């Protein structure tokens, strides 16, 4: 009689088979299923896109001039370049490239990347390809036929742009910084001759209105005023101090309007150059690089 009932039941064959299972079979299935369910909590963690800023460097070494990426590499960096997985989902994408175009071979380049990552609530870390994304860490990302490497400088950068401020910086061109002498020879008196002013071919190039841009077209520095006076050579001859004009040189004083960004509590030019009286500031224009020594700084109202 019970058999007849089970035959009429719609899932009778399934019930029959399940009834056949012994406790050890059930234990096995439960174990398999339990591990899968527990694991699925990890698997079902939805990957999130995290935006990070990477300062590009050629190798994992301090950001010296020679470690910055070269123009040949930089020209391959394109906004929108992306790496996808097998389902066509974006894994890494270049959202933005920020740099200061100039004639320098090794440049400062910052790339803003959108990275598909997993967020761990416990540690507060994002991880990409199994490894955590950490500020200050040197990481590499593959994007199609490109390997982008550098130090992570920011994670989830603030959408609000940094506070900026303009300063009027006055300075002069020191011959020691513009004569292409090796550092050990950059002293005031070379071979008993004191030189004041830079070579004419350089001084003539410096004119008011010279501008420095970033790659978004924002003017970051502009020469507003140039004052050129004859260069001088001074030396000691027959126990007398002699000072004569040097027709090959000009003493150049300039006033530059620079755009600075607030990082922590201070303002920096090109994110890294502090404005300090007595120190130099590095400016790169088309086919021209100068390093004026700052003599005064004034905030632009």
């Amino acid at each position, binding site marked *: 009689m019970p058999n007849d009932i089970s035959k009429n039941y719609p899932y009778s064959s*399934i019930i029959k088979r399940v009834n056949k299972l012994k406790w050890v*079979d059930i234990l096995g299935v439960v174990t*398999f299923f339990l591990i*899968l369910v527990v694991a699925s909590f990890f698997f079902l963690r939805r990957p999130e896109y995290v935006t990070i800023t990477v300062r590009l460097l050629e190798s994992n070494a301090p950001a010296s001039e020679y470690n910055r990426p070269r123009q040949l590499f930089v020209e391959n960096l394109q906004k929108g370049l992306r790496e996808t997985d097998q*389902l066509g989902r974006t894994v890494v994408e270049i959202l933005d490239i920020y740099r200061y175009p100039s004639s320098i071979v090794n440049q400062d380049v910052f790339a803003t990347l959108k990275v598909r990552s997993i967020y761990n609530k416990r540690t507060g870390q994002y991880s990409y390809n199994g490894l955590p994304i950490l500020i200050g860490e040197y990481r590499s990302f593959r994007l199609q036929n490109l390997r982008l490497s550098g130090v992570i400088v920011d994670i989830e950068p603030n959408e609000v742009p940094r506070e900026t401020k303009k300063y009027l910086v006055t300075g002069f061109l020191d011959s020691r910084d513009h004569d292409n002498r090796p550092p050990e020879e950059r002293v005031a008196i070379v071979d008993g001759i004191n030189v004041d002013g830079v070579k004419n071919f350089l001084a003539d190039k410096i004119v008011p209105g010279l501008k420095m841009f970033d790659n978004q077209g924002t003017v970051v520095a502009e020469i507003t005023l140039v004052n050129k006076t004859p260069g001088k050579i001074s030396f000691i001859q027959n126990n007398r101090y002699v000072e004569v004009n040097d027709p090959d040189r000009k003493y150049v004083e300039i006033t530059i309007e620079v755009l600075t960004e607030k990082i922590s509590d201070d303002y920096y030019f090109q994110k890294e150059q502090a404005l300090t009286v007595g120190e130099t500031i590095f400016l790169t224009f088309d086919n021209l690089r100068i390093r004026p020594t700052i003599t005064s700084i004034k905030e632009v109202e």
Partner: protein
Amino acid sequence: MYRRNFITSIKKFLLSLGVELVPFASTVTYLLVSTATPSRRAFFVVSFVYFAYLVYHTSSIKKTIFYSFFPFWLLNVGREFLFVAVPHEAIRSPLYWEGRIITFIFSPFFILSITTIVVVYALVSGNLLKNIYKWIIPFPICQLFRVIFRPIIRQKNPIMGNDVPHGLRYKYLLFFLITFVLFFVSSSLSAYFPDLSLLYTTTEFSFLAWLMLAVVTFRNSSNKEVIKMLTTLFFIFFVMLILEAGITYLQFIKQGVIGLTVEKVLTIPAFGFGADENRLYFRPVGLSYHANSLANWQVSLLTTIILLWLTIQKILPKRISNFFIVSSIVLSVSTIVLTLSRSAYLSLIMFLLLLFIFNYKTTLKALRFTLNYFQKLKIPILILGAYFIYVISNRAFNTLFSLSETGGLTTRQTQISEAIQLIRGSPLLGVGNGMFISASYDFNPQGVVRFFPEYVHNGFILFIAERGLLPLVTYILGIYYLYKSVKESLFPKTVQLVIISGVIANYVMMLFQPFVNLFSLNILVTALLIEVKRHAKRYKQKLSL
């Protein structure tokens, strides 16, 4: 209509071979669907469905594990967890631009491994408890327990029946178990990623657990069932071989990985940095991480298939039986040839040589038969042969560069000498399973690890360095007793020879590669066949053993 006829004829054919139809068909479907699956998440779902369906159909977790264990192992992909063993700044080789990373894969295979261990543990501990309570607790109390638990635990319950660890009677199994206990101790004491090391050991232990489960399943099965299970296992291995060989051929034609979810590598691995191989030649990796790893697995799979074939050949129609063994040999050997693994070539040569020396009549007969089999395919075989000779001679020529100052030989020698130093530091229990690279970096950061952060290319030294001398001693004892069991089981001469040559082929591979082949597939199947043979009275009617 045609389709229905086709399916019916396949069903009839498989049934005529004595295959368990549903487990075999579902395994084939699982392998095919997994190969085509677009994502790893989907692969998990497919794996679970396959597993659940097998349990449902066979009504036995033991049978399910018996059939699904190696297909799961073959497609061992899932979520990878990465651990930096050596930071990238410490390595001078451009190949390791993210440092030397060791991984743990959370895959369906790992879940099945844990399940296998849990099931075996439940069976064994159940039986042990039964014995303990029989011996220790006085009889009236036993009766009371029986009365209380009778409704819950049926009379024929596996833990109370004759289900369990008769396997423990086997000395080899006992020594293997002790070896694993020592592995676990070694891993838990490891100074480098002990949790990861324990996970590695757990996964390895599941292979032994599979063997124990298989033995238990055989003991509780009828003669007919055992024959069916062995035949089905043979055909599952054959399908696995077809799948992997097919993927290898495609990779060879494409000269790169195909991009399947089940492939363990997504980019073409870099070859030729040891100056001893042609960098322009892609060595197919199949479903493994490296060409050598693929070759290593193929050597043990080939030996296993031959062993199983020798066991069941007489129950299969002669023509079909011959077709399957010749196809298996061709698929496996051609895959090994394509990998250009010199150590695998040596293993195969050693395997054949031993067969030839100790049983040259049968070997010659087999060779003649194989040659006759391909009479009609002379020209394609000659063309393929010429190509293989070219590729192999190229590899042989490049091998000469191994002897140069920066060649592979010097690197291997340095690795071995540093590994010996490591062994001196912790001789008894080693540095922990899978922790060789981390330990050698810690031991000598300026050593060979600086430019070649890899496992020492000698499986025996790797074993001692990672797991110590104590487990080696117990393992040797285990293998000795296994050998004794093989001798005592009175296998035919050919079977004995295949068993011993297969094990030696595994060890030859270990001499040159960082693989620990101490519990490889052919060893497990050997132990399984001993179990079959010990019940010769039950099985003698049909099996060839």
